[in-house]
Every structure is written in C-alpha cells, then in structure tokens.
C-alpha cells in the first residue's frame, strides 16, 4: 500500500489487538507506541539505537522502536513487554527468573532485555552464554553488570527465599513493576498531549549572549505558550547541593560558562516543540575562549569563572599526620607517579525527565531524583515559595549513580507550570543529558610513597587536582573525601594529602559513585604494586602486611575497635591470587601469538555517610485499621535496592515479613526525609532509622498486651494477633482511634551517624563506619592491537552484614562494570562524545564472570552490623585492571581509560625504550 500523507492512518497488531493510529509523517514507532497507544512499557533511552531500551518485536524480530517509522509498522505485528508478559510463556518465565536473580535493578533496560531474550528463546530453546550475549548485545544496562541478566536468561538456579528477614535473599519488593514494564519512570507520568518544555542551551564552552524580542518571537509561533528565562524566576536564580557553594543558575544570565548550559526554555504543544529548531530562537552569541583543563584554568591570565574564587580554585581538602617528607627521606625505597583520568559520564539509561502541575495553588513536581527533600529545598529558594507550597513526588529512577542528586529538570518544570498554569513535561534528550548534567571529576594526581626494606610503608604524599567544571556541585565533597581516603585501607603513619577543586568551562563535575576516591585509588593501588615489585614482595602480601586493622588509627587518627575488614578482604583473595597467577604465568610461558594474560588486584575503602556532617534519616511506619502495615520509605531506590533492604530491616525489627509491607515512597507530602541516596548511606543510616522504627512499633504492640520480647505478631483483616508462648492476644485494630493519616499505631525512627569534625590537619572522626573491599582481575591483552579483555573477576567485600546477599552481588557486579568502563573505555569529551555511540559504556559482551566473596565483619553502628556498599564496589576495579595489564604486558599505564590506542603506544614505547 502507499502511505501518502499526513492523514494516512496506520493499522497494525499491537500485543494481539488491532490498532489504528494517524501518526505524523516519519514519527518514530517508539513515540507512537508511548504517546498514542499508551505503551509506556517501551522505554526511550537514546533515540539513536545505541541503548536498545525501546526494543520491541516486529513480526517476531527484535528492532529498536526508535529507529522505525510508525508507518513501517503498517500491517505488521508489534509485541512489547507488557503484551508478552500477559501471553508469552518465555516472557513469563523470564519475568520470574529476572526477579529471582535481581536481574532488574533500576528496571529501565528491563523491557529491552526481556523482549530481546524472548526473541532469542523463541529461536533457541536452551541457549548458551555466548548466544545470550549476542542476542542481548544491543541493550545497554548501567546497573547490573549484566551477569545476573545472563543467569536469568540461561535459567541458572537462584538462591531466592520467600520470607525476607535480614540476611535473606528476598526478591526485590518492587521488582514486579520492573519486569512487567508498569513501573513509572520520569517520562511515564505525563498524560499524552501535555505541554512540553525545550531548554535552549549554550553551544559554546564560554560565551556571552543577548536575547532578541522574545515576546514578539513567541507570539509569531503557533503553539508556543511561554518563553522562560532568568527573568521568570521568582526566587533566586541559583542552586547548589552544598549551600555555602551554591553557584549555579537555573538560566545563565549574560554569560554561559559551559557548553550545554541553559539560557532559556520554551513551553509549547507537542507539535510546536517538535517543529522548534533552537537555531530559530532569538539569541545572539559571542563566543569567548574558555579553559577546559586544570593547567589552563590555573595559568596566568586565565578567565575567572567565579569572582569570589581567585585562580579558579573552588576549594581544597587536606589531611596530614606524622611527617610524610621525613619518612619518605628515610624510606629504603620510594616510588612516584602522576596519574590522570577524564570526565566519566554516569550513563544511566533513563535521561532526566519529569512532569509538573499546579494543584490547589501548589506546585507538584514529579521527577526522577536521588534526593527529593534536597530538591524541595532547592525549589524553595528558586521559586521563592514556602516549602509547604511545593510537593516533590519522586518517580521511578532509571539509574542515578550520583548525578540525579543535583536538580536538572525540576526548576524548568516548576517555572513552566507556574507561568502557563497548565501541566508541563520535560524529558532531556540523550545529548542534553550528557551535556548538561554532572560528571565524574577528571583528575591529575601526583603521588609519592615510600617503604622500608621489610615492606612497611614509610611516608605517603598525595597531591590531586580535580577539574570541577563550571559550577561547584559536589566538588567540595570530592576535595574533602579524597584526602581522607587516598591512603587506601592501610596503616600510614606519615601522610600528607591535598586535593584541590579547580573550575573550568566544562560541565559541572559532581557526585559519581565514589566522589573522587576511584581516581585516587587508581594512583595509590597502582603505585603499591610498583612498590611491592621494587621491594621484591608479593603484591598481595605487601598489602596484607600494611592493611588497617581493628584498633589501628586511620590517616585521620580515627580508631575503629571492630569491623575493619581490609585485611580479611585481601586474605579472602589469596587462593584465587595464587591460582590465577600460576595459570596466567603458564599461559604466557606457552604463548606464541600476541595474547598475554595478567592478574592484578587492588583494595579499597569508603566511609559511609556525609563527611563529618550530620545526615539524619527518618523512617515512619503505620498500621491501618485493616491490618495493613505501611512503611514510609523515603530512601530513594535508584535501582540499588533500598526499598527491599529498608523493608527487610524494618520487617526483622518488627517481626513481620518484608514482602507483606505496603510501601509509600518519598513523596515529600507524606514521607519524612530519609536523606539523599548518596555516600553509600541508605543501608547504614536509613537502615538504622528503619530498625528503630520497627523496634519502636514492636515495643508499642507488645506493651499493649504486656507480651514478652519473644512474642510473635501477625496481622489479619482488622486484627493483630500477638502469640507469646502459650498465650495469644488478639487486638481488634478497628476499635483503635485512627490518626489523621488513618493509622491506628505509628512509629518513627531517626538516626544520624556519630561523627566528629576534622581539624585543620584533617584529624577527627569523619565517618561512623567504613566498608572494605579487595578485587582481583584477570585480563588477556593482545600485544599487537593493544586490546584488553577482562576474563574474570573475584571480588571480596566486607559488608558487615549482608542484609540481602543477592542485592549485594548485584551491587558488586554493577560496580565492577562501571569500574571496568572507567578503566578501559569511558571518557566524556564535551562536544565530541555526547551520545552513547561515541561515549562507550560496557556492553553485555564486555563483562566476564564475577565471583563475589561476601565477608561479614560486623560494624559497631550499622543495623545488624551492616555497612554501606554502593560506592565501594567500583573503587578497586580500575586499579586491579591496571595492575593486571602491567602483569600481562610489563607496561604501567598512568592514564585511564586504557584504550587500545594508548596501550599499544605504551607497549611499543616500552620495547623501543
């Protein structure tokens, strides 16, 4: 048939039903499915075929719905996840197995993964691992590290349990919506037809600009309802996650300081926004020469980004103890080196998105976020409104990893809704997400370390310069955290570490899993190998010998009497270390071609919670008259599993099954602040609050019937039964007076970790707990091409207490995948790698088997002894890979990512030099 013009309708079968639509000419099938046919289970991550989230089956073949016109679906059959899980046996099996394995973390890639797997299983009933990798190779996942997904598709038996106390591998309590495609992410809330926002951004790293006649321009274009600029901001045109450093405008005024910075926005109908070209917007630019790296920013005469910060120095962090220089002078051997790393993009598959409307005069903002209450506080300042006039409703979060701690779409949504008085939506394109949101700090680190002949560390000096981009964001946190952690989890008596944050005309560098510690870990752990080699000591035993232990002060003078798991993690790797070294050496001895194998290891540590600052969490729970137990769980789940972990802790404390709790999320109208999902703090801090809340509720219940501590509680329809030995008490909940939220019994727990400020030398108690890790990597390097293929990881993590072992493994595997990306392929270059085909993150074929060794050295403060884990997991990965590359090639790499081009150059240089 001929599909001729704008009026042509398109008819096809969607999930077994005949549908007919009239799409715009050339409209993407993905858009038609989501906006015309309510198939919001089809996710859009890149609109370029790079991520595969929008994968659907067309006539049984996997395709990216974003790369197909709706017209091309005419007279064909289209199947999406939501339809498949209703009727397809393969999809139904996958749905169960994905939950059993924790193969869906944030869940944004899950529709693409399961649909691709259905395509595979229809052709190949019992695929092997390589077939799974090939079939799913077109779908990117940033959370899981893919191994759980492979296990789920292969049907590897899972260790899942039904009940779900602390320590149990309970399925995610929020997993079903992820595998059915019903979870609502940032772009899934707005009704079709909602007014859309498009942000106008600077095309230059540094430029001044002037607007033309904005009103005149707007009036000429049908469907453009409003133009937003700094002039529309009722409060302060300024935000920042650290109040003392708040420096970023919602809309730049007169000068844009990085490529991608917002200067204005339009609000219009979907058709008007679709037709809108930023080139048509009345703004004139005058490009100026900016600075993009630290050396340029610190050069004489460099343009200054912020008046109050001379030399573009944002701030410094400093820790010193003993006398590093004197110890280095007396050391028998010393090593030194300069290590560099670039911007790393978070690469979550869900771009920033949200929806806002005015309800009863209040602004309600639905958006993907890691920190709803911080968002609320930022909006109070920007909107100049009292906080009770603003409501933040977190949507599902399709990955965050630190970047969704900062506001992105929220102010534009609020301003758009306020100015038009109508509901508005905004979803960043992949490119504007990459251009405008925060990144991992590029680093330039110079480090000197000494040791005595017997292998004892003697002097450690660290200087790090971190490119914090145009605005502060979490840069001060990086500057403060790095000196505290740069020693690694070792006994270093003579230590000086300085970290500086330097402004450049680059996107703001902010929080990314580890806050600068992965960068410092690369330098320190690489040089530890060099030091061990110089001393002639085994690299593992050298670390074991110097590892921190209970009762030994950290470089901040902090002493932990229990739970210091550094040595235990290293020792746990010993069998694999010896086995893999022998295997690799044997492989290399027999090698005739270009392939060589290497084994490397590295350790890491990470303090959980804010550095020497309060960061309380509050968890509230209530029992309704019908016997429902409701947990107000404000610890935002960005895929890591806090909904499940907090439920398990609360459930264990209360004596009730976590799976039977009713969860209410972090809606700021109804749920107290559980703090931000950051700093690996939720299991530890919110977990403690949940435990307190659960224990308080249990105590209230037991007190009512004067039952003993051992009593069991059970909820029926309107009843609460307490069984205490041979006594049984039944409480009729319907007779109790409900409060204004309908709860007949409530409890609240609040926890703030005990820390002490750091003095001028960085001495104090920055964190109430640390978590510890050591990882081993085996790589195969092609000496002729410079390519590195990781073939195995063994990861030992001391988590204090594994609240949920499957989720622990998921965090470890996902962290390793991100560490691998940082080590081998990822570098964000503004203006050059602003999409997911030029910026490479690992695919399913890049992540080898990962063996996780879970160690449980209880922490004194953690709930049930638990420690945080989220950031620890990627800190040792990159240095372990660099050390493995050194073992395989003899070449020490000082700069990440170790691309094939860089490694081959270094191998050639080593041969000639």
């Amino acid at each position, binding site marked *: 048939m001929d*599909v001729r013009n*704008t009026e042509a309708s398109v008819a096809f079968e969607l999930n077994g039903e005949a549908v007919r639509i009239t799409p715009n000419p050339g409209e993407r099938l993905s858009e038609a499915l989501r906006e015309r046919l309510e198939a919001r289970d089809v996710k859009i991550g890149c609109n370029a075929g790079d991520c595969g989230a929008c994968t659907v089956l067309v006539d049984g073949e996997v395709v*990216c719905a974003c790369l197909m016109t709706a017209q091309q679906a005419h007279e064909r059959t289209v199947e999406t996840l939501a339809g498949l899980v209703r009727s397809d046996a393969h999809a139904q099996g996958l749905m169960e197995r994905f939950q059993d394995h924790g193969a869906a973390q944030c869940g944004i890639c899950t529709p693409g993964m399961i649909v691709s797997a259905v395509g595979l299983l229809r052709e190949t009933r019992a695929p092997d691992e390589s077939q799974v990798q090939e079939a799913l190779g077109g779908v990117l996942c940033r959370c899981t590290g893919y191994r759980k997904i492979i296990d789920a598709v292969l049907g590897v038996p899972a260790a899942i349990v039904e009940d779900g106390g602390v320590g149990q591998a309970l399925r995610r309590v929020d997993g079903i919506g992820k595998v059915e495609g019903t979870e609502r992410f940032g772009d899934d809330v707005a009704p079709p037809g909602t007014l859309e926002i498009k942000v106008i951004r600077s095309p230059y790293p540094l430029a001044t600009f002037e607007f033309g006649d904005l009103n005149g321009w707007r009036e000429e274009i049908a469907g453009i309802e409003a133009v937003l600029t700094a002039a529309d901001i009722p409060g302060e045109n300024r935000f920042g996650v650290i109040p003392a450093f708040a420096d970023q405008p919602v809309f730049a005024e007169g000068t844009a300081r990085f490529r991608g910075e917002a200067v204005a926005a339009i609000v219009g109908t979907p058709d008007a926004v679709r037709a809108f070209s930023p080139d048509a917007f009345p703004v004139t630019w005058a490009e100026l020469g900016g600075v993009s790296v630290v050396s340029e920013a610190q050069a004489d005469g460099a343009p200054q980004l912020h008046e109050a910060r001379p030399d573009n120095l944002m701030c410094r962090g400093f820790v010193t103890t003993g006398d590093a220089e004197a110890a280095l002078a007396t050391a028998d051997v010393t090593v030194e080196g300069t290590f560099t790393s670039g911007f790393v993009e978070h690469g979550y598959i869900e771009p920033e998105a949200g929806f806002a409307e005015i309800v009863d005069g209040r602004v309600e903002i639905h958006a993907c976020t890691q920190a709803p209450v911080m968002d609320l506080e930022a909006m109070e300042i920007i909107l100049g409104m009292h906080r009770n006039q603003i409501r933040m409703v977190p949507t599902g979060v399709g990955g965050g990893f630190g970047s969704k701690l900062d506001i992105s779409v929220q102010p534009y949504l609020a301003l758009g809704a306020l100015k038009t008085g109508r509901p508005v939506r905004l979803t960043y394109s992949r490119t504007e997400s990459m251009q405008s949101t925060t990144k991992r700090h590029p680093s330039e680190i110079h480090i000197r370390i000494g040791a005595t002949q017997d292998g004892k560390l003697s002097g450690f000096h660290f200087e790090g310069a971190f490119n914090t981009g145009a605005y502060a964001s979490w840069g001060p946190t990086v500057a403060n955290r790095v000196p505290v952690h740069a020693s690694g989890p070792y006994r270093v008596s003579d230590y000086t570490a300085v970290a500086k944050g330097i402004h450049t005309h680059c996107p703001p560098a902010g929080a990314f899993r580890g806050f600068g510690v992965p960068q410092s870990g690369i330098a320190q752990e690489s040089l530890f190998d060099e030091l061990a080699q110089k001393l002639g000591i085994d690299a593992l035993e050298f670390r074991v010998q110097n590892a921190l232990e209970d009762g030994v002060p950290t470089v901040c003078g902090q002493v932990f009497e229990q739970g210091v798991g550094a040595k235990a993690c290293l020792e746990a790797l010993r069998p694999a270390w010896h086995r893999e070294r022998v295997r690799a050496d044997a492989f290399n001895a027999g090698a005739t071609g270009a392939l060589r194998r290497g084994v490397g290891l590295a350790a890491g540590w990470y303090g959980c919670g804010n550095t020497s600052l309060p960061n309380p969490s509050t968890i509230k729970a209530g029992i309704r008259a019908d016997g429902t137990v409701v947990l107000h769980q404000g610890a935002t789940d960005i895929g890591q599993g806090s909904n499940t972990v907090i439920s398990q802790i609360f459930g264990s404390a209360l004596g009730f099954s976590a799976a039977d709790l009713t969860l209410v999320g972090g809606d700021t109208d109804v749920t107290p602040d559980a703090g931000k999902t950051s700093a690996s703090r939720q299991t530890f801090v919110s977990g403690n609050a949940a435990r307190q809340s659960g224990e308080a509720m249990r105590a209230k219940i037991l007190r009512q019937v004067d039952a003993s501590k051992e009593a069991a509680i059970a909820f029926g329809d309107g009843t609460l039964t307490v069984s205490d030995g041979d006594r049984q008490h039944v409480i009729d909940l319907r007779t109790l007076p409900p409060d204004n939220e309908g709860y007949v019994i409530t409890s609240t727990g609040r926890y703030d970790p005990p820390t002490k400020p750091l003095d001028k030398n960085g001495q104090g108690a920055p964190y109430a707990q640390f978590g510890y890790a050591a990882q081993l990597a085996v790589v195969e390097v092609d000496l002729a091409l410079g390519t590195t293929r990781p073939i195995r990881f063994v990861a030992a993590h001391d988590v204090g207490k594994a609240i949920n072992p499957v989720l622990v493994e998921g965090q470890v595997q996902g962290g390793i995948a991100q560490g691998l990306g940082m080590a081998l392929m990822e570098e964000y270059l503004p203006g050059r790698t602003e999409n997911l085909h030029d910026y490479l993150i690992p*695919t399913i*074929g*890049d992540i080898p088997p990962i063996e996780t060794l879970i160690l449980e050295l209880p922490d004194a403060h953690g709930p049930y002894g638990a420690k945080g884990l989220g950031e620890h997991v990627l800190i040792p990965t990159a240095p372990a890979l660099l050390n493995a590359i050194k073992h395989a090639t003899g070449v020490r790499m000082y700069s990440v990512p170790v691309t094939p081009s860089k490694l081959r150059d270094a191998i050639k240089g080593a041969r000639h030099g």
Partner: protein
Amino acid sequence: MPYLAPTRTEDALRFLRSNSPKVVAGCTDYFPSLQQGQVDEDLLDVTRIPGMRGISRDETGWRIGAATTWTDIVRAPLPPAFDALKLAAREVGSLQIQNQGTVAGNICNASPAADGVPPLLALEATVEIAAADARRVVPLSEFITGVRRTVLQPDELVVALHVPDVSADTQSHFLKLGSRTNLVISIAMVAANVRLDAGRVALAHIAVGSCSPVARRLPDLEARLVGTAVEDLAGFDFANPEALTPLTPISDVRGSADYRLDAVAELCRRAVIAASARS
C-alpha cells in the same frame, strides 16, 4: 511534508524527482542523524517496493536488493567469498540494527566506518542506480566519494548491489577492531578475500575501513601477496608503508592515526591468514 511508501519503483522515482525527499529504509542512520526541529522533510520509504529486498542469482553474479537487511545477508546461503560480508553483517550495531539496517543504506550513508563497505569492496561490488528516465551501474569504489558523499544525484535511487561471479574456492574473512564488544564503531576494519593455488596466494582482495575518508582497497599489498606461501604469511611484511599508501587515517577519540596504521597491518595479517585457513 508527505511520507510516501510506494509499492512501485516508478512511483518512488517520480516522487524523488518531484519532491526531493529523504530516502529511508531501515532508518538506522536516519533517525540518529535527526536534529531537534528537523521535521519539514519529505520521506520516501522504499521498503514496500517488491524486489528491493532479497538476494538472487543472475547470469553474471549476485544481486543484493537495496533494502536487503544485514540479517537477510547473515541468513542467505552464499558462497565462502561472502563470509567477510556475513561476518561484517553480524557486527553492524546490534541484532536490532541488523534486522532494520539495509545494505544500500550503509553505502549511501557513506560513513568512513560503514561496516559493510570493506567486504563489498573486496567482492568488487557494483551499485545499480535508477532515475525516472535512466539506469546506470557504478563500481562501489567510485560510488562513495568522500565522508557522507556519494555520486548519487538527487533524483536517483540505489536499487541493488551486484557482486560479480566469484570462484567457489575464494575464501574470505573480516575483522573489526573496537573498544568494546557490541555496538561499536570501528577503529579499523579489514576484509580479505583470498584464493589459494597449491598452497600459495593466487589472488587477494583486501579492503580497509575507518582509516581513510572512504574505505579503500590495498592494490599494492594485494599484488605483493600473490605468490606468497600460506606458511609465510605470518612473517610477511604487512606493515610496508607502500602497501598501506591508500590509507590516510585520522586521529580521533577512537584512536591515533599512527595506531590505526599499526593496527591495520596486524589486522591485514590476521584476516589474510584466517581467510586462507577457512575452508
């Protein structure tokens, strides 16, 4: 801004002449290249024209319809000389891309990193081009003239590629070098078609992509290889600068120019050895 998906070539060609639309098929390059606001473009979707898709044998060789997908290539029964093309097909993006993306789209998009071009050059493919009043056939090596540039005129449409008959004992291999496993734009790639005679190279067609604005054959290297015994290939000088003269690699985020040349020599060695070993 019409969207036309005709079922007859004549209608397509008429629309092409009257409206100068953008021609689309798999859309795997079209959509990623779209800019915000770029909707005022007429589209000609050629995927509903019978004969545009599929592979057939004719008296002089093989005809590959313009809208043949990479998956079609992978699944087609073809002689060993096409192995490089099949291997390349399996490395075009992902399965999703291979199910949508077409052979003609790949050559018309004229990316220096087009995965399909080196194997098609090694097969000495030609391009059949139709206009409303004329047809012409152009060698692929002359069809692509530069980065994103071809000889195609605004009123012309690629209807097929043709591969001349190739002997059943020609063997073929393809290697793509990238920084990750799946979904990767190559740093360099090599297609090698080799025919052996009594254990020596009798014919070699070697084409390299991502190392020049347009993928190039290496005639000097091909000539040098003729007569080389299979067991001597490992020690053969593939890095000879004269042999690599057609290549003018650039330095970009994927790799330096020097690295590309260095890697290409190694890839050529491996591809020729692998092609020689396939049977």
